[in-house]
């Protein structure tokens, strides 16, 4: 319908366009109504669309221009060649390390989290389950805590003389306190644990919601056919949840690639950059060291491209199974 409208609009030309209130022939009046409606629609979208353009795309465009400049502080000039900063990335060992760290978080944490969330959602979806509200509230509650807050709680718990070490020592699992945040492997482990703690419940709520919309008769049919609960879950529930799994996978990938707060507040990227994420490195390059904003902007574009590629791959894989 609106295509007709836009064709009509194009045919009519600019002079008429400027007099929307003028009287028109009957045929035109109907188009006029359509047009007016379509226009109202556009006006409805306008605030949201303009804000996104203004607050996201416009700065991103400026960041792109910035990514082609070099120089420290405010003495910025266009680089020679323009892609100099991008070339520079290829030789930056610390950057490669942060890419590795980020991908590690992504590959380890996201699948574990989504599987956990799925299993929990499936358990909670059982109408005969007792205390459903209690379980759901308990598991979702971590999401209400801010990233800064939970990072500080985790830091306190994983301190050398903190709760976790006291517990492990008390139970006799270790002989000496573990320097959780001071060793590469344990620091990464704590970050992953923190992410799992904070976000599993969040994803679970999305799965729970999707489960409400599942065709109940298909579950019944499977049960009558004698499929066990695992088989039902795997062959009946999961396929119907696929769109939601895809959405949460994309959202989590997105969030993890851009991860900043945990790296910043929990481990400060240490030891020796081995738990630092890309966003944190970008922040450090821009604000804490000799400010190199052009280079930082180039990193931000790499993050953007990685997110886009991963989302595209997930969409492709998600579609194929349909």
């Amino acid at each position, binding site marked *: 319908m609106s295509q007709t409208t836009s064709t009509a609009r194009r045919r009519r030309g600019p002079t008429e366009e400027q007099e929307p209130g003028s009287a028109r022939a009957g045929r035109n009046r109907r188009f006029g109504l359509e047009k007016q409606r379509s226009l109202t629609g556009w006006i409805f979208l306008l605030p949201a669309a303009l804000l996104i353009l203004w607050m996201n795309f416009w700065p991103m465009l400026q960041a792109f221009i910035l990514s082609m400049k070099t120089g420290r*502080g405010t003495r910025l000039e266009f680089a020679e060649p323009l892609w100099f900063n991008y070339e520079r990335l290829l030789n930056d060992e610390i950057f490669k390390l942060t890419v590795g760290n980020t991908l590690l978080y992504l590959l380890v944490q996201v699948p574990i989290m989504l599987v956990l969330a799925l299993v929990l959602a499936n358990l909670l979806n059982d109408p005969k389950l007792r205390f459903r509200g209690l379980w759901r509230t308990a598991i979702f509650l971590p999401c209400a805590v801010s990233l800064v807050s939970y990072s500080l709680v985790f830091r306190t718990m*994983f*301190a050398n003389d903190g709760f976790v070490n006291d517990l492990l020592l008390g139970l006799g699992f270790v002989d000496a306190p573990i320097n*959780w*945040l001071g060793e590469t492997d344990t620091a990464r482990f704590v970050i992953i644990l923190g992410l799992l703690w904070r976000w599993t419940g969040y994803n679970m709520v999305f799965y729970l919601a999707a489960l409400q919309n599942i065709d109940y008769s298909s579950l019944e049919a499977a049960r009558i056919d004698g499929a066990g609960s695992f088989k039902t879950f795997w062959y009946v529930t999961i396929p119907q949840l696929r769109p939601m799994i895809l959405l949460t996978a994309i959202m989590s990938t997105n969030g993890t690639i851009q991860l900043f707060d945990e790296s910043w507040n929990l481990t400060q990227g240490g030891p020796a950059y081995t738990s630092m994420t890309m966003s944190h490195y970008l922040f450090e390059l821009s604000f804490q060291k*000799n400010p190199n904003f052009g280079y930082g902007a180039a990193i931000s574009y790499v993050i953007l491209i990685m997110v886009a590629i991963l989302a595209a791959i997930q969409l492709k894989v998600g579609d194929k199974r349909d």
Partner: protein
Amino acid sequence: MNVWKKLTSLAVLVPLGIALSACGGSGDEGNDGGEGSGADGAGTLTVWAWDPAFNIYAMDEAAKIYQQENPDVTVEVVETPWDDLQTKLTTLAQSQEFEELPDIFLMQNNAFQKNVINYPDLFSDYSDSEVDFSEFPAGVVAYSTFEDVNYGVPFDNGTAITALRTDVLEEAGYTVEDFTDITWDEFIANGEDILAKTGQPLLSGQAGSSDLMMMMLQSAGASLFDAEGNPTIVDNEALKEAIDIYARLVDSGVFVEVNSWDEYIGTLVNSNVAGTIQGVWILGSIQTAEDQAGNWGITNLPKMEGLDGATHYSANGGSSWAISSNADVELAQDFLASTFAGSSELYDTILPSSGALANWLPAGESDVYGEPQEFFGDEAIFSKVLEFAAEVPSNNTGAYYYEGRDAVSAALTQILDGADVDTALAEAQSNVEFAMS
């Protein structure tokens, strides 16, 4: 149509209302970098500093002293942690928003060159001021001097000390004398003995922090950079020696690594370690543990034997007051010249309570320095530190000090994990060169 009008007016009014009611700042309060008239000694000075127990306290005391002569001047200190302060300076300079700067801000000495070189627009210089920079140690003034122009009044003194728990030492049969004028080998031997006898390690520090190593380097007049600012991480004998000592400290258990600065302070105040090697400002934190009063003593640093220029003296930290480009320059200069660069009374007040040791040399003649300190076994520790301060070798920091320090920290972590020293240092050097390119 009526509803449309309502909606549009709502869309305009709601944000506007919020803007008016809540955003304290865009117009009026934003210019707290006071443009008050400085000539007649009235106005407000806004200051950014980070430690309520130390530099903020000192600034408040300075304000009181200045107000005796200039009752119309108010000083408003905004607590701003150092990392945060650096971020704010960068953001403001990058966007050329100098109106948001305070009049005076405190800056880490090690970061001074970097900021002056990258963002000269942030600073007002001291060339027309009454501050007599010859009344400060030349090595300290150098941090905030660029191309012969002064940009900072040195505040606290980062002279390094070895602070020790005398009660623990006694238990193992040692005294502070046994740790005075010794070498690192002796220090480690004593430390192992004390650890065996009392179960207490001598030192603690943040894992992956290179503070201690940097102090060792400076004690031998060495640095990570040469006079031209080029990195000298590879083939740096002093650095290799410092890494070796550090590794031996950690391996022997004499030095215990913790996760964070908080935990480091915690090991001191909770009596988990028997001492520390740090800038003298650490005394402020140590004195918060009131139950340890009378059980602390201080002495100089162990020496890196066999190195040219090795001494028992070094420094860590220290900061200077900068005047911003948005300041009421005249008033700010007058304020600093008559307090931090001209008032013995100020230093007499802040020294005993916070351990803020002056860089301003005339303050050293004050009697307060010679007074015995009850917390430190009735010893006149501050005159002792002043003696140390005079002996500290100068070193090169340059604009890329933090890059160098972090690269060496990373190398240190790798080396402790078993990496080859030369390989790790070569990598650190190339990372610094990369960051500088």
